[in-house]
């Protein structure tokens, strides 16, 4: 008797039973997706930096040193005392960048959470109940889309006074449109499925059906929109702060740093380049993660 190679002799039916579990297949897709891995990796590093900012920053981000202003970064002939140089008030640029990660990530996470709660509630209600609820929600989405976000956010932040809290709340209250659109469409897709009908047949209450039958099945789309809107909120905060009507000095916001560096751009372009590049990398990482999550969780679009 010869040894048979087990892998070759397993018949297809058995293969299906002992083959990779859905969890293993998901893991396989996740680790096979380059963009997702890069996005999660970079975002993880930035998150780590933001959380441990006090330990990582070489200097106090607010400490001014007027004797050592506009020191160039180390790769432009500076010293390791200030690896990325100092700004027009002599503050250590690297330390301000590190604390800036906190501002950006905090705005992204909290604003996306606020708008996510509003938009998901509206979208799921519209999709599930239909009829008048749907008409009202669709109308509200249309109204929201017609409002110029940058202009309204600027105007409201300007009259309320620019602070981190105001910016977060205003962005949170403005960016719910995509949540509502996507959650409405996703709910419409699943609400006629057999498991929803079955839950209704055994007498489950409406909140229970929505919470334990609908929500888990549209959660993958929700996660993708959360990442997109996080990136959106972070970019908008940077725009508002850049225009001088968002987070106010001396808060270390990346958009504000670009704006402060703008006046010295002619001679010291790195003052503008560095914070902008970090902002670009953060938003790119979040978008890569969002695109990747959509690829690995959407069963029908898988190639």
């Amino acid at each position: 008797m010869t040894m048979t190679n087990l892998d070759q002799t397993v018949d297809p039916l058995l293969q299906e039973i002992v083959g990779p579990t859905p969890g293993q297949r998901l893991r396989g897709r996740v680790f096979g997706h380059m963009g997702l891995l890069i996005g999660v990796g970079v975002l993880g590093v930035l998150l780590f930096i933001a959380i441990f900012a006090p330990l990582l920053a070489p200097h106090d981000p607010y400490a001014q040193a007027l004797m050592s202003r506009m020191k160039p970064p180390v790769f432009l002939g500076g010293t390791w005392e200030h690896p990325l140089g100092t700004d027009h008030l002599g503050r250590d640029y690297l330390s301000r960048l590190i604390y800036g990660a906190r501002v950006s990530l905090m705005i992204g996470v909290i604003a996306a959470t606020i708008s996510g709660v509003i938009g998901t509630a509206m979208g799921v209600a519209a999709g599930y109940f239909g009829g008048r609820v749907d008409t009202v929600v669709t109308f509200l989405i249309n109204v929201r889309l017609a409002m110029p976000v940058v202009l309204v956010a600027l105007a409201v932040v300007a009259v309320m006074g620019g602070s981190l809290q105001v910016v977060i709340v205003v962005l949170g209250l403005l960016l719910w449109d995509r949540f509502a659109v996507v959650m409405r469409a996703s709910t419409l897709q699943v609400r006629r499925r057999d498991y929803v009908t079955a839950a209704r047949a055994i007498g489950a209450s409406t909140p229970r059906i929505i919470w334990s039958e609908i929500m888990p099945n549209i959660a993958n789309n929700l996660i993708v929109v959360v990442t997109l809107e996080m990136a959106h909120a972070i970019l908008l905060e940077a725009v508002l702060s850049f225009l001088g009507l968002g987070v106010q000095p001396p808060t270390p916001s990346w958009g504000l740093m670009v704006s402060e560096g703008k006046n010295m751009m002619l001679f010291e372009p790195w003052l503008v380049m560095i914070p902008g590049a970090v902002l670009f990398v953060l938003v790119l990482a979040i978008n890569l993660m969002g695109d990747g999550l959509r690829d690995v969780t959407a069963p029908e679009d898988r190639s």
Partner: protein
Amino acid sequence: MLKFILKRLGLALLVALTVSFISFTLLFLSGDPAASLAGESATDQDVAAIRELYGFDRPMLVQYSSWLMDALRGDFGESYYFKLPVASLLAERLQVTMLLGLCGISFALLTAVPLGVLAAIRPNSIIDRFALFLSVAGQALPSFWFGLILIVAFSIKLQWLPASGTATWKHFIMPTVVLGYYAMPAIMRLTRGGMLEVLSSDYIRTARAKGASEGRVMFKHALRNAIIPVVSLAAVQMGFMLGGSIVVESIFALHGAGYLAWESISRNDLPTVQALILVFSMFYIVFTFLADVLNAWLDPRMRTG
């Protein structure tokens, strides 16, 4: 068709009315305009006098309806800062912004559509990957930073293009690119997706089978059908772009409506801000309305909506 247009028009008007009400309320609720107008050193009597002069002491709904009635006649009041009628200020500043918006959307269409078509003809080729990379990176690129990079590169280092102003066509090159690139990823993805879908359809196979040349298949048969959704997306993007012009105009010091928005917001010039929010949202509403009508005209299946 007429019924669809009327229904859609009614919706557009209702949306416009709601937007105007919300924007009015937002600015109304956000503090005492009389106090900020009067300035730091004003006495209580000054504030009260200003409140009466501008009618801030009336109930909000009364103020809103009188503002709306005036606005419908094209009278947006007088700018607090410029001391000019807001309507004429807007008419003057909107010219630059409209020109910029048209240039921006043309740039986006002229680059994104060919790129999307090329990407769809050869999926997973180098061009396709390049297009995908551009669209992912483009969405993450902060517009204000992109604008400043262009200024550093082309105005300061190379000295090819002027950094600010509107004197010649050269002044519009960088603003056009910065405003237009933001619409590119969405247009490109939609063109690529539409082309891929159309190219696998039966009538393309038929066209090929009857011996039509590849160029004829691509342009006469495929692109004409794939471009329909792109047209309506472009209209929507055009509406968004006017909002994006705030950033672009402030970077390149173009004195258009976006710059006016920034100026009047920083100076608490409420009548101008209110008029601008209304005008910008009207543009969006008109563009999406036109796009919907165009779509319904091109594709009868849409008329049921």
